[in-house]
């Protein structure tokens, strides 16, 4: 044997990514999620049966980056479009990325009813607690007191309601088979300048589980607690610290339902 030493790629290019540069702001979890989706699709060898439904908001261009067939839905209607695809073609792996405004505000009816019927689709909610693409208005998930362009004195929960917990709302329905919430941003550790990346690794696993649940006939929903430093008007790393401090207690990560026990194995 030769004593030659070489390098082997452990993680490399994903054919399920188009390679197009993203329009996302630096450090945005939308970008991170895109890679996780690509990875999970490849893990399930599902590219040829995958159909992405992109919604309105920062997720609207997901089909530019994910190299899969895609349909773009009107604002909030992605769950209905997904269900329409899946009912016509049960053999397809149908999934969508929605923001909090899209899924929890303008599209709540579509989300709740698709969930209640247990449509075998996978919905990935990016909850960054604010309207990103429209420029930083209050979202249903905005924490109390957060200053946004439409709550210049901070969100007053007495008049605008409390932050909307979509995962717990869906937990009240019998329809969903898989409900999980993942804290996606890099998270502060005991060491001041070191963050952990557990959210990304958990997120990729959650997506794979969600796909498995769909292919076993169940409705799966993963909420990704995320950040939006541009509209929160803080630095990138401060947005991650804020998310850990304020959003994580408000939207606790965890496995809320796993009817098929896909995570137990």
């Amino acid at each position: 044997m030769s004593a030659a030493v070489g390098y082997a790629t452990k993680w490399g290019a994903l054919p399920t990514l188009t390679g197009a540069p993203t329009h996302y702001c630096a450090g945005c979890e939308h970008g991170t999620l895109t890679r996780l989706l690509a990875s999970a699709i490849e893990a399930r060898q599902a590219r040829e049966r995958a159909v992405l439904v992109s919604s309105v908001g920062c997720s609207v261009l997901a089909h530019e980056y994910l190299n899969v067939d895609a349909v773009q839905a009107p604002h909030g209607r992605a769950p209905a479009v997904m269900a329409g695809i899946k009912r016509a073609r049960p053999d397809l792996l149908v999934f969508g990325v929605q923001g909090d405004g899209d899924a929890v505000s303008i599209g709540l009816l579509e989300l709740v009813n698709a969930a209640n019927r247990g449509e075998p689709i996978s919905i990935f909610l990016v909850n960054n607690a604010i309207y990103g693409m429209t420029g930083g208005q209050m979202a249903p998930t905005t924490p109390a007191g957060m200053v946004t362009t439409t709550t210049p004195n901070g969100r007053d929960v007495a008049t605008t309601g409390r932050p909307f917990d979509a995962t717990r709302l869906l937990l009240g329905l019998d329809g969903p088979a898989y409900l999980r919430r993942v804290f996606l941003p890099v998270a502060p550790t005991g060491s001041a300048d070191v963050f952990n990346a557990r959210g990304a690794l958990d997120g990729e696993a959650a997506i794979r589980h969600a796909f498995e649940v769909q292919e076993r006939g169940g409705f799966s929903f993963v909420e990704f607690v995320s950040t939006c430093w541009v509209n929160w008007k803080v630095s990138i790393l401060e947005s991650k610290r804020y998310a850990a401090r304020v959003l994580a207690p408000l939207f606790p990560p965890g496995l809320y339902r796993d009817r098929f026990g896909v995570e137990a194995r």
Partner: protein
Amino acid sequence: MTALPEFLKGNEALAYGALRAGLTAFYGYPITPSSEIPETLAAKVGRPEFPRFRVFLQAASELEAINLAIGTAATGARTMTATSGPGFSLKQEGISYAAAMELPLLIVNVNRAGPGLGNLGPEQSDYFQATRGGGHGGYRTIVLAPDSVPEMARLPALAFSLAFRYRTPVIVLTDAFLGQLKEDLPVPDVAPEEWDTSWAATGARGPVRHVLSSLHLELADQNRHSRHLAAKYAEIARTEQRSEDVATDDADVVLVAFGICARLARAAVGSMRARGLRVGLLRPITLAPFPRDRIDDLVLSGVRRFLVLELNHGQMVDDVALAAAGRAEVRGLTEVGGLLPTSAAIGAAVEAMAVSPTPLVAAEEVDA
């Protein structure tokens, strides 16, 4: 295939017609006077005589229904939703997206009366909303208007054929009267047509993938897409005008009417011909594209008087006037609120028009 029932409501006939045309999925939200369409279809899922019909879902809202249909249409399958005015308004968002994404889709509007909740009587007051592209952003749809129960059964096949040929939403605009009217129904047994669906989003193969999106962030891209749509609508307007003529050859007055009004006009033509009045009927079958070429032909062959009969405050009369382009007198006879014009009113309007002075333009042509 099994023979259809032979005596049906218009709404039921339309449902059977859609099944015969290869309908795969129906999504709808109940609304009077259209509900016989979902009720008829709900019982047909899984029935061996309609093997393609696999999906029936009562949606949670009109919005959900049109978007479920968008999803199914994106897979290249034949899908339909049905509603009446208030629901048709709610569906406009989805129709705009479907037009932009070039999805073949059938939307049925069983027109009821009045703005707001109105009432359950027949009107044709959604004519503008249907024919002008009722949602945002400047698109057009094809609009078909049946005038009998057998035609309610026949038009879904034509609607799907046009929807897939041009990849565009198609609307069947009918009314509360025709939807509820019962008639004998001899429907020919025809096999569903097949169309190219290679554009559909059903999973990417190798480097080929399909993205059905209405978003074109680059201004030049949107410009190109809008021009592409406009060219398609122009081709449709050029080649897909459909209408029926009744006794127009020698007519002094040509009635123009669609749907239930065409039935009233047809009867009026018969009774007035019996009294020696030379009256004809032009019945648009495509409200969009409007059969303006046929109006043009009639004007060129000497018709100088058009009386437009419709159940609204005067909408199609604008299209007739545009087509006549000042070369003929165009009047309207309208009724609203769910009521129909009486035969006496139609007769009086025709007589008044027939004895009126020959329109100025025509007089000049005669002098020349």
